[in-house]
């Protein structure tokens, strides 16, 4: 017996899960205090100011491609290389046209990129923005999008307005087909009534801007 998966039809089967998920994990509320912060100690996470400066430096050479949507900044992490005494940040950028990850290491004291590495077939976890974009592609799919909207309506009694109405979590998928080289995401979609859509066979190819369904 196979899973009760309804792909051929226009609906998505929703797994009967009354989840108690809490997806709203926004930023911390201390932004107003940033100005008076003492300098970070070596083991501290990046400060908001450091993230801002690293972002500015790391994206300077990619502005045009970022504006066109070809390159996207995924996130900025503290580099935790114990061989380095300086505070450094790593900016993760993805080039969808080239299907390559670019990691730019920024020395925060010098305010410049001190190392850049670029490679294909390397996929860091999807960013929040990518999760949202994947959901938009899913909603734009003629059959699957209709299915998601119907399930949302059933769960909430309301029409789905945008992808942001869905509670999303994305994981990279790279096991088959074009996804071996493209940036592909598998989404978990939680509905307002706590059920999750069975999306395990749906893969959203962010590089090709396509939705595929897996056969197994």
């Amino acid at each position, binding site marked *: *017996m*196979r*899973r*009760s998966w309804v792909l051929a039809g226009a609906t998505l089967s929703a*797994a*009967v*899960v*009354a*989840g*108690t*998920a809490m997806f*709203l*994990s*926004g*930023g*911390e509320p*201390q932004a107003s*205090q940033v100005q008076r*912060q003492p*300098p*970070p*100690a*070596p*083991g*501290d*996470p*990046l400060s908001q100011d450091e*993230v801002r400066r690293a*972002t500015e430096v790391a*994206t300077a050479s990619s*502005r045009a491609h970022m*504006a066109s949507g070809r390159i996207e900044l995924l*996130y*900025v992490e*503290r580099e*935790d290389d*114990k*061989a*380095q005494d300086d505070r450094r940040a790593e900016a*993760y950028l993805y080039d969808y046209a080239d299907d*390559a*990850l670019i*990691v730019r290491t920024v020395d925060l004291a010098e305010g410049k990129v001190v190392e850049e*590495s*670029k*490679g294909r077939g*390397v*996929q*860091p976890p*999807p*960013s*929040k923005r990518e999760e949202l974009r994947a959901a938009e592609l899913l909603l734009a799919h003629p059959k699957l999008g209709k299915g998601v909207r119907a399930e949302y309506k059933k769960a909430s009694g309301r029409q789905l307005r945008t992808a942001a109405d869905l509670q999303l*979590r994305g*994981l*990279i998928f*790279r096991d088959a087909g074009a996804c071996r080289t493209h940036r592909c995401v598998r989404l*978990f979609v939680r509905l307002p009534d706590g059920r*999750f859509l069975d999306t*395990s066979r749906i893969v959203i190819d962010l590089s090709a801007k396509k939705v595929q369904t897996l056969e*197994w």
Partner: protein
Amino acid sequence: MFVHLLLAGSLAVSGAPLARTAAAPGQPCSAPYLIDERLPNGARWRLCWEMRTIEGLTVGRVAYTPPGHQQVGVLRSGALAQIHVPYDSGEPRYHDIGSLGSAAVALTEADCPGGERRGQYTCVLTRARGHAFLKDGFGDPAERRSAQGRELVVLSAYQVGWYTYIAEWIFGDDGSITPRVGATGSLAGTTTAPKHGWPIGVGRKHFEESHSHNIFWRMDFDIGGKARDVVEQYDFSGNRTKKRSMIRTTLTRETKALNWPMRWWRVVDPRVRNADGHAVSWEINNSGSAEYRGPSDEAFTHSDVYVTQYRACERLATMNPSPRCRTSVDAYAGKERVKDPVLWVNVGFHHVARDEDADPMPVHWQGFRVTPRDVTARNPAASAGPSAPPQ
């Protein structure tokens, strides 16, 4: 404006900075990222924590001070390195990291009983861990020895799809470290063939699919600093014999190691000695792993402990996010000489659902133990703490 927009995206993770106070001289991090806890028996743990975008909760610069002794550095860093979730029918197969930093669950006061929340996503607490020791006095109350132990816990939780993972780093007042993850939340709720699942709900209609959680931890040991650390594997020969002999194997090169009855490992710094002149070490054991072994394209599941030479860009056990490095731990463990060891511990749990796993699913734990071996010349807690025998 452009940078502001980018920044909004970059900070949309749980790791957005908290208000800091300046770090005290000699401290590696500032409040609220510094944890410095003296437990009732006098044992002290000092560490830094960070909520990283990819790995989530990370502990760093972990140092232990046994009661009445000097502080010794143990770990440069410790973090989750992957949660691999293959389902028994063969599909799907998830790699749940996942930007754990943005999947962190806001914790309530009730999630952190008696403890202190650092920001919304991390809890620091202490709790009882049962008997530290118990020895009968044979009728002489002055000879009777009994003490209750306590432990420091640093925890965060992540919502990854229907699952909630609670990740704990437990630091015992006996010098032990227990990294563990509890899976709770909800079952996937998908059905499968009877041979791949277990009937839950009424009757025999819904066979919930069995699956594994193969969890990897990355631990960079730096015992008394990063130099000189060596990893040894211990085995005990003798199968169906009365005698057993100890066999020590020094892992001078990168290694993919398997669990084995009675086998354990230790990270030792031969130049850091206790008062008896024995080298200070921490032992890795007791994973209780289900030892899942996947197909050839999941070679990272084929070993239980990997020892690799430190490389900053080797962060995850699979799906490693660095173009400069290889992508999985089985590839990191080549033939390189190990001068600064990193240990990767793979602990599997095979979850065959049961009726009791109905929502909210009871937590099931998996992890392993890191225990001090010859860090002190005696039991450092023997005469310390409020539960010590009356004078």
